[in-house]
């Protein structure tokens, strides 16, 4: 699901890596802390054991000196009642074992060790009977005399248990925090960056689907722009900010507008803002395909301004252009929404009337003719138009249909102008 090349994977991977590094740093800090804590604890144990030694040194010293093994055993048994003391061995001044609470411990002290132990103590950590112990060996000093030695094994198991607990608690804490931060960063990433990106992608896909719908290109473009506007509100992750995603969406919007303008521009007549010949040809082809597929019908209407050359000659070309613009307004207002009016060329206009037969088209043509005849065109005398209407019949081609409309128009012109003829 998560593509290794995706932004989400890479960002999450970076977050995970960073958190691992942070967790590692905390882990190292924890280890250092724990090592210090343990060393301190061991020092405390050593202190306690050396205090224990001095507290018992007179009694121990005499018992060791006089080889009172039974008394030593009794003293040691009393001391063994203390928690964590696992073994006690007493040695005479030559380092020979006198008494040990562990019958297997019969190893005498080495000369090196005894030399090092004169009037002091040593301790090392070691493993004994599968558990960690502090091997504490001390000289026993009575009345200033080094009369012997004793060894205590002090269990470090409680200390190790503490270490395990501390490590477990802190490791759990660090990991939980890392995972929480990871989830949080991920959700922020999702909410602020990725979700808008996905939404944008979905919107674009949706808009692309609209683009594949049938119907007028400019209308589809309009719809696409509208759809985009609907989505663009959701694209802004944090209201009131100019964040990058919003800028991206806005750029898309601008692009759509530009696209629409470009599209509409090449299919619109510059003077009248009506569809141009190219657009009319497109629609004609589209309507032809449609009627062939669904067995319907449609009509076309060709109209020409009567004596337009005279208007140009009398009032000038500017006035002529104004008449053409005014004529476009009339055409825009007097047809159904699905009808497509356009400038066919010069003073000639073509209107495509989908789903209408020839007779109903003629009625509309008649109404429009009256409308033009009665409309005032400022600066010029009254204007009239001649209409040629042609309806599609099975077997017609585009060329043939236009020829029919042209013929009808010729007929209307020949018949005295300002009239509707049909073929």
């Amino acid at each position: 699901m998560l593509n290794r090349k995706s932004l989400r994977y890479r960002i999450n991977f970076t977050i995970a890596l960073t958190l691992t590094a942070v967790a590692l740093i905390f882990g190292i800090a924890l280890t250092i802390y724990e090592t210090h804590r343990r060393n301190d604890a061991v020092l405390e144990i050593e202190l306690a054991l050396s205090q224990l030694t001095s507290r018992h040194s007179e009694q121990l010293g005499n018992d060791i000196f006089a080889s009172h093994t039974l008394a030593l055993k009794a003293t040691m048994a009393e001391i063994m009642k203390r928690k964590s003391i696992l073994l006690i061995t007493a040695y005479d001044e030559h380092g020979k074992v006198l008494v040990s609470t562990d019958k297997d411990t019969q190893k005498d002290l080495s000369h090196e060790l005894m030399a090092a132990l004169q009037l002091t103590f040593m301790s090392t950590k070691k493993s004994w009977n599968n558990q960690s112990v502090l091997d504490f060996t001390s000289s026993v000093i009575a009345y200033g005399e080094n009369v012997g030695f004793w060894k205590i094994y002090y269990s470090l198991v409680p200390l190790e248990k503490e270490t395990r607990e501390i490590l477990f608690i802190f490791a759990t804490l660090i990991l939980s925090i890392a995972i929480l931060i990871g989830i949080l960063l991920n959700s922020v990433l999702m909410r602020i960056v990725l979700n808008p990106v996905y939404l944008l992608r979905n919107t674009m896909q949706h808009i692309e689907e609209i683009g594949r719908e049938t119907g007028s290109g400019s209308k589809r473009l309009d719809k696409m722009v509208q759809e985009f506007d609907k989505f663009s509100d959701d694209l802004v992750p944090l209201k009131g900010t100019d964040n990058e995603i919003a800028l991206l969406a806005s750029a898309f919007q601008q692009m759509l507008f530009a696209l629409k303008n470009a599209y509409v521009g090449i299919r619109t007549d510059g003077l009248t803002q009506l569809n141009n010949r190219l657009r009319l040809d497109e629609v004609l082809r589209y309507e032809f395909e449609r009627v062939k597929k669904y067995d319907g019908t449609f009509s076309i209407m060709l109209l020409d301004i009567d004596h337009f050359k005279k208007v140009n000659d009398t009032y000038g070309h500017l006035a002529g252009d104004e008449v053409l613009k005014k004529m476009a307004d009339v055409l825009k207002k007097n047809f159904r929404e699905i009808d497509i009016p356009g400038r066919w060329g010069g003073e000639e206009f073509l209107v495509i009337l989908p789903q209408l037969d020839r007779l109903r088209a003629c009625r509309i043509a008649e109404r429009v003719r009256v409308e033009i005849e009665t409309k005032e065109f400022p600066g010029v005398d009254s204007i009239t138009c001649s209409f040629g209407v042609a309806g599609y019949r099975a077997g017609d081609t585009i060329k043939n249909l236009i020829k029919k409309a042209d013929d009808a128009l010729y007929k209307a012109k020949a018949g005295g102008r300002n009239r509707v003829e049909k073929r």
Partner: protein
Amino acid sequence: MQSLLIVFVCLAALFSAGFPAVAAADEIKVAAILAKTGEAAEDNLELFEAFRFAVNEVNSKGGLLGKKIKLLEYDNHSTPIQSKLAAKQAVKDGVVAVLGASWSSHSLAMAPYLQQMKVPMISPDSTHPDVTLAGDYIFRVCFIDSFQGKILAMFAKNDLKAAATVIIQNINSDYSLELARIFKQNFTATGGEVPAVLNYTSGQSDFTDLLKAAEEFNPDVLFIPGHSESGYVVRQAQELGIKAKILGGDAWPYRQFYANGGQDIKEGYYTTLWNKELDTDKSRDFVARYKKVYEVTDFSAAPYDAAMLLFDAIKRAGSLDSGAIRDAIAATKDFDGVTGPISFDNIGDPVKKVIVMKITQGRPSIFKIITPN
């Protein structure tokens, strides 16, 4: 030239002996090492008194070899280590011989050092067999535990008709441990039974738990080879209603023992080297003289004999050379002691009679005297 050499030697001797030696030129320094502090202090005082009595007696009759005897008293603090330290100090102080110690644990600690330094030592009453094994400079004037323990075992078996004896021993005391061991060995050898040997430590004064444990074995005899703390044991045994007969060794009859509970004993037995009731001329005479100065106890005679034997040896040696004194002590033949005649075997031990005492209502009296065969 020769006179110069003599002056030189004299100077060297002066410097090596130190300044006190100058003043003590006409003194014979003898050490008495016993406890003045610690658990043995009360008991050992009785021995100090006897040593002082002997020294005073000799000095009042003109001293020895024309010199006064100077008794240097050392405190061993009732511990083995400090006994050795006291012996070291005594040697440093230049004593010709050492009297002491009393408790076997203390004598055992001193003897090897004095042997090494070749200073004669005579213990008045350390009965542990190992004391004199330290070497040929170590002597004693009492019987030893291998004999005493055997006598006690035979007495328990034959006179007290005991089948089972429970032993209560002090594990800090070499004397107690050794006497218990020898008793057990001899008692079981004659068919007796020792169902339990119970331990206590120095300084303990409550023996209730121990005695209750002993009672469970239903013994005929309770053998308690301790020092004066044995007084607590016997009193508490009687308070618990223990019917077993009570038996002890030669370390019982201190004043402190009676004070601790010995005075309440209805019936009990112990062994001793000497008692003021001993009906000999020497003994009667000693008691008559001694009681004018100190109270006579069972521990008055042995230290007196030890001191007098040493002074006799010095006289016979005719010099203060420690080797000569040792040889004279070893050569002692039938020394006429208050406790009886004393001759040493090659180890340094005399052959002595054992007196069995019976305590009735807190009052001791001689029950029988056993002579070694």
